[in-house]
């Protein structure tokens, strides 16, 4: 007993160091995939309010270019408005049926804090669970996808952006239909890569990459980027596809959150699929 007490007294600094280190690193590694709490992130009320104050000062830097972007998007949507078209085929009866049900809901948000140069980049949004945002909702901008909601508090939300190591969104190449998982290797904020496309599929350079809509986070067909170059993976029959993102994440400001109203139904159905039993 005496020896034990002496041992603790002798190594108390080292033991405290190990204890705190284990706490910090375990929190780090577990929170990369599933945040334990909202308190140690920018979703917390204190950190969020600091960042909103900062945003009040810095929001003007990209304001004109962002306004221009929004204006362009408005024009694009306005062109789809029925009022801009003259009806050519007057004879045909238009059937206005009600066989549509809303599947996706959109909420506008503003990015108040973002980084693009770290290994894992998270964006902070100015709205949170009080506006109906929840973990797992998709985030995109007018030019392309942004990420997935990682963590929320009442008034703020943290987005795990596509600039993280294990974002793994399912994307596809628009005209060939080949699909894979989106990855980011951390070197440039403009370049991402797709993993898992078999190398017997022909892929054209500069073909569009869009979301596949498989996991139900994003609707099908939201722009991701364009194919930049193809390489081969050593020892595997796969393409090493790099793509250039259509959105410039260095200047991002206005985003939309997409909520899939059928998400629960889909995941409940997919839970009934039996797991692969390998040996």
């Amino acid at each position, binding site marked *: 007993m005496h020896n034990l007490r002496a041992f603790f007294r002798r190594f*108390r*600094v*080292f033991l*405290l*160091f190990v204890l*705190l*280190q284990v*706490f*910090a*690193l*375990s*929190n*780090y590694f577990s*929170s*990369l995939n599933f*945040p334990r709490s909202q*308190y*140690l*992130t*920018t979703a*917390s009320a*204190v*950190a969020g309010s*600091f*960042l909103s104050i*900062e945003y009040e000062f810095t929001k003007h830097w990209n304001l004109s270019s962002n306004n221009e972007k929004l204006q362009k998007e408005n024009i694009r949507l306005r062109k789809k408005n029925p009022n801009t078209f003259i009806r050519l085929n007057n004879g045909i009866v238009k059937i206005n049926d009600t066989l549509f049900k809303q599947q996706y809901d959109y909420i506008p948000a503003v990015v108040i804090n973002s*980084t*693009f*140069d*770290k*290994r*894992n980049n*998270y964006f*902070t949004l100015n709205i949170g669970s009080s506006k109906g945002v929840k973990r797992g909702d998709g985030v995109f901008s007018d030019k392309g996808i942004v990420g997935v909601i990682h963590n929320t508090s009442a008034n703020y939300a*943290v987005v795990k952006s596509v600039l993280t190591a294990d974002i793994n969104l399912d994307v596809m190449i628009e005209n060939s239909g080949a699909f894979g998982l989106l990855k980011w290797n*951390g*070197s440039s904020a403009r370049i991402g890569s797709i993993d898992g496309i078999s190398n017997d599929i022909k892929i054209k350079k500069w073909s569009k990459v869009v979301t596949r809509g498989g996991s139900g986070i994003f609707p099908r067909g939201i722009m991701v980027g364009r194919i930049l170059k193809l390489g081969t993976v050593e020892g595997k029959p796969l393409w090493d596809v790099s793509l250039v993102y259509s959105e410039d994440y*260095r200047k991002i400001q206005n985003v939309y959150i997409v909520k899939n109203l059928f998400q629960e139904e889909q995941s409940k159905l997919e839970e009934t699929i039996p797991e692969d039993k390998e040996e």
Partner: protein
Amino acid sequence: MRLILVQLFRFLFFVLAQSLIFNQLEVGLGIHPMIYPLFIVLLPFEINAILLLLIACIMGLSIDALSNTYGLHTSSLLVLAYLRPFIFKIFAPRDGYDSNKEGSISEMGQRWFIYVFGILLLIHHFWFFMFEMFKWNEILFIFQKTILSLPISYLLCILLQVVFVSKPKER
């Protein structure tokens, strides 16, 4: 009392400057300047090692909370705080440390500061980037980030001391 107030003010300054200014400075090539290790080095020489670890932990957690790193800054700052007494002992002046002084460049001299702060900052940066990547095939990227960020952080820390810390002493 005055000492505690000064340290508290410095603590706030370093946390806010790191998370609101230096985390946003993204110049490319993976350069990530980190200035908050300077706070731990500038704490008084005779501080208790346990208190040092606890201060480092609180500081790391507050920076983590403002930059979404979930404990990465805490972990690397703890390493720095744990190793500080050992490095200080190796580079101790012949007649020990003067408890009236602090480990700044103006009070301990350039030679002492370059060695002590350089070694501690190198360990801190390497630890940080190692756990940020944590993959063998990105080891070159880890070295690149460490080697490029280190001089920038170092120069910023010296500049900060020249601007803020160094004051005429009349003790």
